[in-house]
């Protein structure tokens, strides 16, 4: 198991290096004049040149990349070109918001998708068709449309929930929870739809196995077969889908955070990319890749626990 984890960490570190390098060079080729973006339209050309020197943009690209990489390895991601805030501090302040949103959404989606998928696979008929219809509908409706619909209904028309914003848990647990309900729901709906479909297919495939028939013929209760054996066998497929959904949600959170004005990692990524704030973009890229690698590692470990053959 230790060798398995070590291999995963090794490949993760290599992936991180590759992605961050590509991201750094993409930022260079996509940005035009960051100094002008910072100083605004009335800045003189002398002021713009001075700002470029101040940011080190007059240095060769490879030199800048090497300086960034060697600092990043020590955990120093520098400060934002636009806000002067320490990047690690900024990301650590925003990370809990995005992670609360995404983890909360994935857990709720996992529970609902499992219930729906299992019901559809076991019961079949109208329920199965309904789940499949919901899956298609969930795919078809973008989560920002769901978000706007939910806000209009629950925040503006009925004034039950806050329309925007984030309240830290330590400040007010009730408001923290309420501020999460609408954005989490918007993320959950589409995820449930597609995950339920995948789980349904996985369970249906397991139910057709010979050993299920054998267990049934031996008089083992249906409930025990379903929850103890079938669900466990179908779990790896479901976990893989949910891990992919988790990564997708990190992307989906960008839009949801904008609509609900949540100061998370997604909105930081959008703002810093559009402004050309390379140090912040790189910080977000590194943290996001690390999260994705860790999630995949956890999924692999759980899959390995469920199915020891995976570890080989």
């Amino acid at each position, binding site marked *: 198991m230790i060798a398995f984890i070590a291999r995963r960490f090794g490949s993760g570190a290599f992936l991180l290096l590759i992605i961050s390098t590509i991201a750094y060079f993409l930022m260079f080729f996509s940005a*035009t*004049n960051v100094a*002008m*973006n*910072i*100083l*605004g*339209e*009335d*800045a*003189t050309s002398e*002021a713009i040149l001075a*700002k470029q020197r*101040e940011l080190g943009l007059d240095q060769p690209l490879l030199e800048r990349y090497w300086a960034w990489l060697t600092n990043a390895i020590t955990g120093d991601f520098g400060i934002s070109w*636009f*806000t*002067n*805030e320490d990047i690690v501090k*900024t990301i650590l*302040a*925003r990370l809990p918001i995005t992670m609360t949103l995404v983890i909360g959404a994935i*857990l*709720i989606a*996992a*529970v*609902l998708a*499992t*219930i729906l998928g299992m019901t559809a696979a076991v019961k079949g008929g109208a329920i199965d068709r309904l789940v499949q219809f919901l899956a298609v509908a969930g795919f078809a409706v973008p989560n920002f449309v769901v978000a*706007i619909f939910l*806000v209009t209904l629950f*925040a*503006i028309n009925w*004034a*039950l*929930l*806050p*329309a*925007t*914003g*984030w309240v830290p848990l330590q400040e007010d647990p*009730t*408001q923290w*929870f*309420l501020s999460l*309900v609408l954005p989490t729901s918007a993320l959950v709906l589409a995820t449930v739809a597609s995950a339920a479909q995948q789980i349904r297919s996985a369970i249906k495939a397991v139910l057709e196995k010979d050993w299920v028939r054998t267990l049934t013929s031996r008089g083992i209760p249906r409930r025990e077969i379903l*929850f*103890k054996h079938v*669900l*466990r066998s179908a779990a790896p497929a479901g976990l893989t889908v949910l891990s992919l959904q988790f990564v997708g949600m990190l992307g989906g959170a960008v839009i949801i955070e*904008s*609509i*609900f*004005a949540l*100061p998370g990692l997604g*909105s*930081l990524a959008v*703002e810093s990319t*559009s*402004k*050309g704030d390379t140090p912040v973009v790189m910080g977000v890229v590194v943290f996001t890749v690390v999260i994705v690698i860790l999630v995949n590692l956890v999924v692999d470990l759980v899959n390995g626990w469920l199915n020891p053959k995976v570890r080989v």
Partner: protein
Amino acid sequence: MNLSKRIGAGLVALALAGSALTGATPALAANKTDLVLGSLIDVKSWDPSQADIGHMAPLYQAVYDNLILRTPDGKYKPNLATSWKLNADNTEMTLKLRTGVKFTDGASFDATVAKANLDNFIKGNGPQAGTLTGATVAVVDATTITIKLVDPNPELAYYLSTTDSYMASPKALGTAGLKTTPVGSGPYIFDAAASSAGSQEVFTANPNYWDKSKIKFKKVTFKVMSDVTARLNALLSGQIDATLLDTKTSETAKSRKMTQYLNNVDWQGILIFDRAGKINPALKNVKVRQAIAHAINRPALLKALQNGQGELTNQVFAKSSPAYDAALDKTYPFDIKKAKQLLTEGNATGGFDLTMPAWPDPTMNAVLGDQLKAVGINVTWTQVPAADYRNALKTGKYAAGLFQLFQGTPWVAINQMATPNGSWNVLKSTDPVIDRALNSLKDDASEKNLNAQAKVINRFLTESAWYIPFYRVPQLFFAGARVKTANQAQNAIPYLYSYAPTGK
């Protein structure tokens, strides 16, 4: 825990979540002694040398005092300076300073501190540093300073009432901490613990402030919301008291009884940079530029782009400006026949090709492209990332481009569009008419002559079609029932001092 138990636990959690939701009635509206504003952007740095006009102004005003105060109608009033006087040739201003003013860290305000702040602004390489380039500040006595300029500036008071004179504590000035934690003498004190850069900035009333009439709230919060849908939803649900919306969201706000503050701060149109015809030879001929102006169906553009909201115009100066001339707005009626005739007279019979960067809203490119095509002008739209659009215009690669420019005071507008080094005179065009007006201002920069020369320049810019405005773009600012405010002359949004509770 086996899987079935885990599912059970998940369901219980979900049920608990559901029960917590039932009957929840969050206190959505803040205390009415609090002011919560939805801001499009946050400041980039709290160092006053990095201050900018527009959306950033109210944020700086919360914590810093200016030397001079600008009222909503554009008049100047004493603030940290109790009086000021420009010399006859507008190159030196003497300011008398207020006594007894303390910064929130206990430091005192005096002439030395004022000089240190102005020097910090001049050397700070901020967005507006160019407005005081080369200026020197001298301390005359403890309550008097002089600012000596390199070139005459009859509107120095304007700059000192906006970005150039925010006063920070001398203890904080020059420290790295000032970039993220402002310390001023202003009406409110920055609450670092409650603030988060890029998310919200929180201020509490300064109990020792020298002018209590400026403090209308116990707490002021700026919630940074770049997304207009988020701002609309926050306003309608009472989470924020006021914010800027757009033409797509303003109708909903109006239907929900929000108060609209409509301010035509900007104009939108084509900036023809290549008046010398170096990039596109056709544009050298004034008749060709005039043909473009005639080819534009402004009402159709206003309807398509601004939902009909805005004022059609042919000139770049605001209605409130002394340079404004109502007759100029009739210079270029939509007239395809006339446009074609002018093209022929300008040696561009049948039209010509024109390359411009694509405006971020594709509707504009489609509608304008079709209108120009009707007279034979074929526009090629070069795709440019939205965030880099302004930079692309300023590279000098394009003969013309679309933009939305702010309608400043006469001096600001002249320096923006007409002077050889004007920030939007990208290819540094010159003309004898402009030269004569600028020379006249060098000899006599009195308000009377400034207004007269601004009129001359306005007429020239319009008739020579250096710029082809379509309409004045309204800033659609909205406030809820709990607060009132006032439009600020030459600023996209109201100043912080203008907000007051309505008592509702």
